[in-house]
């Protein structure tokens, strides 16, 4: 019974493509079409373009014609459609984000018209907690070798990590999506991604930072920079390969500015996390521990010269 339900849902997805182009037809039976995991574009769209899936509004109006009722954003089933994924699909999407390939857009290949919010939400939550926990662990490990370092649970860092990661994972895709919508007129062939797809691939692209942050526990500085650079390269490559089909029809200037802005923001996030949550240990060792220090959180990197009293 579950299989039939899945097929029915896929039917709607392809129907939305058809309906967006020719609003007056009804959907056809799927019995003579390819299995749902095949490429949607080949079976459905002779023009070879994905213009049908441009706006969320057209998808929703197409569903309206199909279902005779619109799942409004105030209903629970509207949000349930964003969580309609299986374990295997989530794992497949994570694997796809870890190994970006040129020419394979994450959205086309792995999302295939079914973006989900489960992945982005829980990857961001995991990353926020892992950042705070491993950042705290580095202080613990440092204290083992040097008992003068004062250990504290630093619980406020969880809040900081959470807010930073979630703001990045939602506001940057929002800005990107808005910009791409604005530039939509320049493109002939390919419509931009929906907001949900943008959030989705940004969220999945953050996955690789989770093992990287855990590996940052190793207190060897050049190794930390190596892991960080590797993670940033893979993650940014995934973003660039996903955005490339969209921006390549735009002018070179806009394309290069957009892609470099995306990579730069990603790099800023990675470096910001590294500096805020993982202080280089030798400098921390020199941090003054007497009482009249300014009341800032312990371990913030302050490259001040050593005070005379600690000489």
């Amino acid at each position, binding site marked *: 019974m579950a299989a039939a339900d899945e097929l029915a849902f896929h039917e709607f997805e392809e129907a939305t493509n058809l309906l967006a182009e020719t609003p007056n037809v009804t959907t056809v039976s799927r019995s003579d079409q390819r299995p749902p995991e095949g490429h949607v574009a080949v079976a459905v769209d002779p023009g070879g373009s994905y213009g049908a899936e441009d706006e969320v509004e057209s998808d929703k109006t197409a569903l309206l014609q199909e279902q005779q009722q619109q799942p409004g954003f105030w209903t629970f089933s509207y949000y349930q459609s964003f969580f309609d994924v299986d374990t*295997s699909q989530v794992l497949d999407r994570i694997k796809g984000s870890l190994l970006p390939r040129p020419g394979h857009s994450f959205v086309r290949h792995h999302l295939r018209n079914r973006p989900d919010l*489960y992945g982005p939400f829980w990857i961001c939550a995991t990353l926020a907690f892992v950042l705070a926990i491993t950042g705290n662990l580095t202080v613990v490990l440092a204290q083992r070798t040097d008992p003068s370092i004062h250990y504290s*649970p630093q619980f406020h860092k969880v809040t900081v990590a959470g807010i930073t990661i979630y703001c990045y994972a939602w506001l940057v895709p929002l800005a990107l999506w808005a910009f791409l919508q604005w530039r939509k007129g320049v493109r002939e062939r390919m419509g931009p991604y929906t907001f949900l797809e943008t959030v989705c691939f940004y969220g999945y692209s953050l996955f690789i930072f989770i093992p990287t942050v855990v590996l940052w526990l190793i207190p060897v500085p050049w190794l930390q920079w190596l892991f960080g650079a590797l993670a940033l390269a893979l993650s940014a490559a995934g973003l660039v390969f996903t955005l490339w089909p969209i921006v390549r029809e735009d002018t070179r200037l806009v394309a290069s500015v957009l892609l470099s802005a995306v990579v730069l923001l990603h790099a800023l996030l990675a470096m910001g996390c590294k500096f805020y949550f993982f202080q280089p240990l030798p400098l921390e060792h020199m941090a003054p521990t007497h009482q009249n220090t300014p009341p*800032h959180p312990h371990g913030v990197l302050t490259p001040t010269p050593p005070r005379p009293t600690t000489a």
Partner: protein
Amino acid sequence: MAEAAESPGDPRTTSPRPLMRDLKAVGKKFMHVLYPRKSNTLLRDWDLWGPLVLCVTLALMLQRGSADNENDGGPQFAEVFVIIWFGAVTITLNSKLLGGNISFFQSLCVLGYCILPLTVALLVCRLVLLAKPGPINFIVRLFVVIVMFAWSIVASTAFLADSQPPNRKALAIYPVFLFYFVISWMILTFAP
């Protein structure tokens, strides 16, 4: 229900039976958490008293005695409270959005009651911390927290896993794992 209809004004006939009944129900659910078997008791007669008591106990015990520099400290009472309740609500919403057929309050009830092993772990940790600090102290605490963490996960999985379709079980269980992991971390890093 007949007990609730007793007249409240007469001190001789007003026996504390509703209270005892509720306490017994809470106690029975505690036993079900400690010895998890496939049973429906937690789900059928859900209540939120047990989770509330556990949450307040946990939050109170995680408070440190001294008024440290605000940025230096462990979680505040409000932070623990918010993490537990907000976390439980988020997990419940996630489970329902994935298509699970458990009700909102039943899920909150299960998640709240399954904090019991971790509360016991915190009690043990506080007792262990009275002894001399050192690596053995830490190893004992680590061992206790790990065992209780596993116990919490097993207990909550026994109740929650059946409500999800089989191809999404892992998606629904992972947030529970993360939730208890964060609580275990708060317990392990507690230092008076």
